[in-house]
C-alpha cells in the first residue's frame, strides 16, 4: 500500500532499538546514532521504490546508483536508499530520516511531484540540495533554493509537445486528454496554456480519466463527435495504453501524440508494434534509441549493470547525480558549496549540457519520438532545446 507513513534505511541499525524497546513494554530506549562513517560523502537516495510509481522510481534509482558507483575523483560515497512508498507523507518522513542521519551533502530524490512538494520544506529545514528529475513545474517556481532539476521542467517540455502538434503536424482541432493523476493534471494545465498561446483552442478537453478506467469508448465517442484532427494525451502508462489501443481497434486513425510515459519500455511492451503506428510522444531524452555514441555507450553499460533497457528518467538522474559528484570531486565540501556550484556551473552530461537557469532548472532539451508500426523502438523525429521551449 502506498500510504506508508515512514521510511528507513536498510543500512541503519536503529530499528532494532525500537524492536527491542517495544518488546520491553514500549519504552523506546535511546541508542546513539552518530556512528562514524568511513565514506568521503553521504548522499542518500530517497525514491518511490514501492507503490504505483515504483517503475519510474526504480529507473531513477538505477540511474543514481550507476553514477554513485562511479564517483569521479576516487571518492567513496555512502548512498543508502530510502523508500518513499509513493506517498507525500512517506516522502517527507523518508527524507527527514535520510537527512537526520549523518552529514548529507545532497540527496537524490523522487520523480513524483506530489512527493517533491512534501519534501521541499524538509530540504529547506536541513539546508541540503535535492537532485531530482520531477517535472512538476511549481517545484522550481517557489523560490526554494535547494531544488535542482535534471530533466526539463514540464512547463518547458510541454511547449515542445504542443509546438510539435501545431507547428509540425499542422493540427488545429485538438482533443486534449489527461488522467486524474498528479502527472496528468499537471501536464493538462500546461498543455492547455501552451495551445492557447499557439493560437489553438482544443475542440475537446477532458482531464477526468481515472487511472483505472477500463472502457474508453465514451471518451473516444466524444472525441470523434468534436471533429478533432489529433489526439494529445498526457497520462500515466495504463490508461494511455488503453486509449491508444481502443482508438486503433475502433478504427480511429487520428494521430496520437502522448506524453513521455508511453516511451517507457514497460509501457511499449503492452502494444503490438502495429498498434503504435502514427503514435508519437515527447520525451526528455530517449536513450533506448541510442542516438549518439555517448548515449549508446551509457545505455549498454546500464543494460549490463541492471539487465533492463534504460529510459530517460534513469539517464536524467544519472547525469544529475554525476554532475553533483563531479562538483564534489572539484572541491564542494558542504551542502552550501554544492548548492552554490550547482547554481552556476555548466556540466556536459551524457544526454545534454546542464546549466541552471537561476531557479534550479538545469535541463532544457526535449525530443519528439514516433513509432512507424514495425517496431517497439521509436525514432527521434524532432529535437527542441533551450529557447525553443519557451513560449511568450
Amino acid at each position, binding site marked *: *500500500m*502506498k500510504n506508508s507513513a515512514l521510511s528507513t534505511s536498510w543500512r541503519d541499525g536503529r530499528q532494532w532499538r525500537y524492536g527491542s524497546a517495544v518488546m520491553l513494554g514500549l519504552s523506546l530506549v535511546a541508542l546513539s546514532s552518530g556512528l562514524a562513517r568511513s565514506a568521503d560523502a553521504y548522499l542518500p537516495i530517497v525514491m518511490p521504490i*514501492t*507503490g*504505483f*510509481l*515504483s*517503475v519510474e522510481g*526504480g529507473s531513477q534509482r538505477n540511474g543514481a546508483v550507476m553514477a554513485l558507483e562511479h564517483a569521479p575523483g576516487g571518492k567513496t560515497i555512502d548512498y543508502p536508499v530510502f523508500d518513499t512508498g509513493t506517498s507525500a507523507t512517506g516522502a517527507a518522513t523518508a527524507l527527514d530520516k535520510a537527512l537526520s542521519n549523518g552529514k548529507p551533502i545532497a540527496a537524490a530524490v523522487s520523480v513524483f511531484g506530489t512527493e517533491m512538494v512534501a519534501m521541499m520544506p524538509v530540504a529547506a529545514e536541513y539546508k541540503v540540495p535535492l537532485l531530482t528529475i520531477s517535472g512538476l513545474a511549481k517545484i522550481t517556481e517557489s523560490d526554494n533554493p535547494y531544488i535542482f532539476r535534471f530533466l526539463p521542467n514540464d512547463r518547458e517540455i510541454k511547449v515542445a509537445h504542443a509546438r510539435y502538434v501545431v507547428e509540425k503536424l499542422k493540427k488545429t482541432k485538438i482533443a486534449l486528454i489527461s488522467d*486524474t493523476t498528479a502527472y496528468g493534471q499537471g501536464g493538462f494545465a500546461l498543455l492547455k496554456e501552451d495551445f492557447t498561446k499557439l493560437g489553438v483552442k482544443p475542440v475537446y478537453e*477532458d482531464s*477526468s*480519466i*481515472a487511472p*483505472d*478506467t*477500463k*472502457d474508453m*469508448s*465514451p*471518451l*473516444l*465517442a*466524444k472525441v*470523434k463527435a468534436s471533429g478533432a484532427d489529433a489526439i494529445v494525451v498526457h497520462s500515466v*502508462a*495504463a490508461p494511455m*495504453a*488503453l486509449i491508444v489501443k481502443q482508438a486503433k*481497434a*475502433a*478504427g480511429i486513425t487520428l494521430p496520437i501524440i502522448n506524453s513521455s510515459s508511453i516511451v*517507457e519500455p*514497460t*509501457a511499449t*511492451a*503492452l502494444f*503490438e508494434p502495429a498498434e503504435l503506428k502514427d503514435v508519437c510522444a515527447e520525451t526528455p531524452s530517449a536513450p533506448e534509441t541510442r542516438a549518439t555514441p555517448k548515449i549508446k555507450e551509457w545505455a549498454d553499460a546500464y543494460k549490463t549493470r541492471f539487465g533492463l533497457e534504460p529510459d530517460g528518467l534513469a539517464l536524467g538522474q544519472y547525469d544529475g547525480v554525476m554532475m553533483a559528484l563531479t562538483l564534489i570531486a572539484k572541491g564542494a565540501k558542504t551542502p552550501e558549496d554544492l548548492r552554490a556550484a550547482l547554481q552556476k556551473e555548466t556540466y556536459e552530461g551524457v544526454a545534454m549540457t546542464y546549466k541552471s537557469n537561476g531557479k534550479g532548472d538545469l535541463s532544457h532539451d526535449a525530443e519528439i519520438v514516433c513509432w512507424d508500426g514495425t517496431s517497439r523502438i521509436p525514432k527521434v523525429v524532432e529535437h527542441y532545446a533551450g529557447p525553443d521551449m519557451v513560449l511568450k
Partner: protein
Amino acid sequence: MITFLQLVINGLALGAAYALVALGFVFIVNATGAVNFAHGDLVMAGGYAAVGLGSLAQIPAVYFLPLVAVIMFVLGVALALLAYFPLINRPPSTVFISTLLCGIILQNAFVVLFGPQAHAAPPLLKSGVAHFGEIEISVQAIGTMVVAAILIASQYLLFTRTQIGRRLRATAEDRQMAQAVGIPAFALIAATFGLGTALAGIAGALLANQFFVYPTGGIPLSVYAYIAVVIGGWGSIAGAVIGAMIISLFQVVVSAYVSYAAATGLLYVTLLLIFVVRPQGIFGERVQRRA
C-alpha cells in the same frame, strides 16, 4: 462512428466482466457469509497466472484457462487456511480485515514477482474485432460475455437446485449446526474459497487481456464487486449481475454524456440514494431475524 447502441453494447460487455468479478465474491458470501476484500487482488492473481502461462506458451488463453482455475483453486484454499479458518469464530469484520491484509500481501507479492508495471495476457481465442452491421465488438469481449453467462447460470443452479448448493448455504448460516446434520463444513468452506478464487482467476485471465493487470489493479475491482453485491442485495446472484451492469453503464454510457469523474460521482450518489430508498438493496436480504 460510435453510436449510442455501440456504447450500450460496450457497457454490457464491461458489465459482463464486472459480473464475472462479482461472481466469485458472491460465491464466498453465499457459502461462508464472509466479505473477501482480497477478491480484486485474486482477480489480479488470475491475470498474472494468465500472463505467466501465456509467456511460457504462445497459445490462446482458452487452452490454459482450466489450469489458471486449478492454480487459483489452490490459492483460494490457502487463503481460507490463512485468513478465514483461524478467525472463523470471530465477528465478520475480522475476516474483512484479514482479507484486506491478504490483499496487501498479494499486491506486494505481485510487485516482487512481476514488477510494478502493467502486463497484458493473451486473448481467450484471438485478438481482433467482430462486426455486426454498424456495431463493433472485440472477440475478447464476446468471449468474456459467454464465459460470464455460463458461470452465472451454473452458480445459480448450483445454489438453488443442487444438494451441494443447499449444504453450502446451510454452512454459511450455521456452520456448527451444518456439521451436526452431517455436512463436512470445513471441507466445504475450503472448497468454497477454492471455487470462489477460481472464479476470480477466470475473471482475471479474461480481463487481463483487454484491461491489463497491475499490482494495485485489484483494489477498484474489490470495491466494484462489493458495490455490485450490495446494490443487488446481499447474496443474490441476479442482484450482483444487475449491480455489475449498473456500475458499467455508469462508466460507459453515462460517461458519454458527462465527464468520467461526474459519471463516477453519480454512480456513488446513486448508490447512496438506493440505500435511502431500499436499505436492503434491490433484491433485498432474504433472511431476517425474529426478536
